[in-house]
């Protein structure tokens, strides 16, 4: 059992803890070090914002934390798992299936499936029965305000609605850790605000550790904690009091 990180932690308990993460990419004849020994942690109930310019290694960081990209060095403890990267690939998949949600900049929804089916599909792989998957999926979609649009396919949903389906797909699993990569950058201000509020709620109400990568400084207002990363090194890490009623100005 892990001493630090827990599955069912109270707000403030560690959900993810990484030490000395190093990740290199091949570039021409040499290597580029994208993560240079990063120490990182995220807590249950926190909306942790990872910010930095493009190429700073913030996406690579969450790829390493979530078991998607193996780091060259370092250790990731997540929930009840001591050193995630010691598990077999199959066990890492299972860990993500059980505990992790993902939201991407692109929505990555299957064009053939309705909103309800998008969410159900993942739940079925979690082993839920058809009925339970349908109930949970409906609840999740209602929670993101898509109750009236359950049977719409992505082609008839707006960008903001698609992202909300993607969020419902991630939240329906009731994840303990929620990774979001630039979740608002493809959206206008209004939809961006809806999305960041949903992430805020996932942390506050569901107690998930929400790790949100973004380069949009206006999202800071909702964060419990803001981490700045530059050139593969964490340059600042500050806690702050989130303002759940903050307003994201429209781009227009």
């Amino acid at each position, binding site marked *: 059992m892990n001493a630090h990180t827990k599955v069912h932690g109270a707000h403030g308990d560690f959900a993810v803890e990484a030490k000395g993460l190093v990740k290199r990419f091949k570039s021409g004849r040499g290597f580029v070090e994208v993560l240079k020994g990063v120490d990182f942690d995220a807590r249950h109930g926190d909306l942790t914002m990872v910010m930095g310019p493009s190429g700073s290694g913030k996406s690579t960081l969450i790829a390493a934390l979530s078991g998607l990209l193996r780091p060259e060095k370092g250790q990731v403890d997540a929930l009840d798992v001591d050193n995630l990267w010691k598990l077999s690939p199959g066990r890492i998949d299972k860990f993500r299936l059980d505990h992790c949600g993902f939201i991407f900049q692109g929505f990555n929804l299957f064009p053939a499936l309705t909103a309800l089916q998008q969410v159900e*599909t993942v739940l079925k792989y979690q082993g839920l029965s058809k009925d339970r998957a349908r109930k949970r999926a409906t609840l999740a979609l209602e929670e993101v305000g898509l109750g009236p649009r359950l049977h719409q396919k992505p082609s008839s949903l707006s960008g903001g609605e698609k992202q909300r389906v993607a969020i419902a797909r991630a939240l329906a699993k009731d994840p303990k850790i929620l990774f979001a990569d630039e979740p608002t950058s493809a959206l206008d201000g209004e939809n961006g605000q809806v999305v960041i509020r949903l992430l805020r709620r996932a942390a506050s109400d569901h107690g998930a550790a929400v790790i949100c990568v973004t380069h949009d400084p206006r999202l800071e207002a909702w964060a419990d904690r803001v981490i700045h990363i530059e050139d593969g090194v964490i340059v600042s890490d500050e806690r702050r009091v989130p303002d759940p009623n903050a307003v994201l100005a429209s781009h227009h």
Partner: protein
Amino acid sequence: MSLALATLLYEWRRYMAAVMALALSGLLVLAMTGVFIGIGKGFTAQIERSSADIIIMQPGAKTLFGGPSGVPRRFIPQVYNHPAVDEVQPFDMAGGTFQSVRDVDPTMSQAERAKMGAPKQNFVMTQIIDTNEGAVTIPTDYSEELVDALRQPYTVAIDETTLPKLGVKLGDKALYNGQTVTVAAVLSGYPSMMQPAIVMSRDTLRRVGQADTGPRVGPLMVKLADGSQPEIVSAQINAMGKGQWKAWTRDELAQANANAMFEEGILVIIIGGCVVLGVIIGVAITWQTLRGAIMANIKEFASLRALGVSMGSLRRIVLELSFWVGCVGVVAAITLTWLIGLLASANAVIIALPPILLIIVGGGLIAIAMLSGLLSLGILRKSQPADLLR
């Protein structure tokens, strides 16, 4: 509805190439095999379409033509001993030269006739019917007028597709083995390949001197009073014969005749070639189409991977998708072949599609689709969720 099936239905245009490739592969094999079976059926149509419920041949016979099919004449009264038997007639066949008669004097020399453009002689196969009403040897699709026409002495009936080859038309006179006969009727649905066939009455065959009059006759065609259970009567007749003969139901014989076609080396080579071609075309196009279709959804697959859905589950989705593509391909192949069959039969070419052939080819098409699915599994490795993070 599963993800695979929903995707196939929603993005059907994307999968159209694969479905069409499978359909055409299937069509190639089905139509070729069907045409050959159809040709084979042309040879045996006279018996297979007769009202005979049972056909009796020598014990060693394997098909209508492929063995000792004739029997001693004394079998005829013996078969009548079975109480269910209504009528027994020996089938009779002969062959001879057939030559059209135009405005040429038949006493001219061959060389002179050739100069005038008279056609050469053809060797024809001659089959018979009995012309008494309801005779067992009359194919069920013969009209009364047709039988009436053949009841006249020295008349013959010829299939519409054979007429041009023999150089005659309805009402023409011709020479059969040097004796004048009249084309009194035209058949349809009895195409003959390789060797043209004509039909005449048993009486006419006797008049031209070719009927079986000796102690041996052709296969016995047996009509039952109640033809609803030919298998049972056939078994009883076999028991009566104590091994002297073998009785076949009409269906059994038709099946054996069709199967015998596959013992023809050249046909097996042609059909085998079609199968190989069909498999290569089917696999190549289906594989590439599936690859393209998976690539088009690779980000969606990657997002499922990110959410923890295993690679094995994604592979199952692809294989399920291939299976459904195969199923649609089978339906398309059968529909296409059926349409071609309609077109062919409108032009008097028979494409026979026995259910067993449909099952074999259908199974083969699904196997091709699954194989293509297996080949395209490699592309799933590109579903790297880390690529979705930028």
